[in-house]
C-alpha cells in the first residue's frame, strides 16, 4: 500500500537518494539503482522528442500491472521519482510534500554539497514519518 519507493536524481541523472518503503518491490543492489536512475533520466529526455505534438514535457507517469511510477522535476532540474500503488491518489501533494522536506532538511543543511548523495539524518527521519502517514 501507499508509496513503495522514492528516488531523487540530480541534474545530471545521478542517483542522490533512494529508499524503499515496504517490500513489495524486488530488492536490487546499489549498482542496479544507479542504472535505473540513469536510464530513466535518458528516457525522460527521449520522450520529449517522440511527441506527436510540439512542446511535450518528459515522461510523467508510467503504469505497470503492479505499480505506477511518477516523475516530478523541480525548477532546478532535480527529479523526484515516486513509485506507488496503482490505487494511490493525490500524488501531486505527496510530491510537493517531499519537495518541501528536501528543501527544508537537505538544501538548508550547511554540510550538504549540491549534486552529491543525500546523507541527512533529519531528512531520512521526517521522510519516513511522512510516508508512513500516507494512506
Amino acid at each position, binding site marked *: 500500500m501507499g508509496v513503495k519507493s522514492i528516488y531523487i536524481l540530480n541534474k545530471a541523472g545521478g542517483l542522490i537518494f533512494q529508499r524503499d518503503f515496504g517490500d513489495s518491490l524486488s530488492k536490487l543492489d546499489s549498482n542496479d539503482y544507479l542504472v535505473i536512475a540513469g*536510464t530513466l533520466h535518458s528516457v525522460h529526455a527521449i520522450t520529449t522528442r517522440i511527441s506527436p505534438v510540439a512542446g511535450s*514535457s*518528459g515522461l510523467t507517469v508510467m503504469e*505497470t500491472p503492479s505499480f505506477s511510477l511518477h516523475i516530478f522535476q523541480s525548477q532546478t532540474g532535480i527529479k523526484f521519482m515516486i513509485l506507488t500503488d496503482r490505487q494511490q491518489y493525490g500524488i501531486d501533494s505527496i510530491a510537493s510534500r517531499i519537495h518541501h522536506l528536501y528543501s527544508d532538511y537537505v538544501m538548508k543543511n550547511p554540510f550538504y554539497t549540491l549534486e552529491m548523495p543525500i546523507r541527512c539524518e533529519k531528512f531520512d527521519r521526517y521522510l519516513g514519518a511522512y510516508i508512513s502517514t500516507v494512506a
Partner: protein
Amino acid sequence: MIYSFWMYDRHCECIYSRDWHRSAAHEDKEDLQKLIYGSVFSLRNITRKLSDDDAFLSFQTSKYKLHFFESPSNLKLVLITDPMMSDACNALRQIYAGLYVEYVVKNPLSPIEHPRGTGVDNDLFNMGLDSFVRSLQGFA
C-alpha cells in the same frame, strides 16, 4: 485522439507503422522509430527489474500517452494517443490476436522474418487495422 501505431519484431526492427492524426511532422521517421523503440525497451527492462510484471502498460507525458503490449514471441505493439485516452492494452491485444495472427501469421505468402525494408505489407491487415482503430473510443 489516436496519433500512430508501431510494431517491432524480436530483432528490434520496426516492421509496421501507421499515422492517423499527425501534427508535429518529424523530419526523420527512422530516427523516430528508433527513439520510440529505445524508450519502450528501457522502460520494459526497468519494470522487469523492479517487479514480477512482464512489461509496463502505458506511460504518458503532458502531451501524449504511449500504450504498450508485448506478445509471447516478443513482438512489440505500440499505440500513441492523447493523454486522455484510457488504457488501450486490450485494444493492442486484439490487434495482435485478431489481425496480426489472422492475416499476417496465418498467411502462407507472408515472410516469417521481415528483414530491413520490407515489413508487414498486407492489404487485409492494413484495412482491418484502419477500421479497428477508427472504431476505438476516443479516435477522433
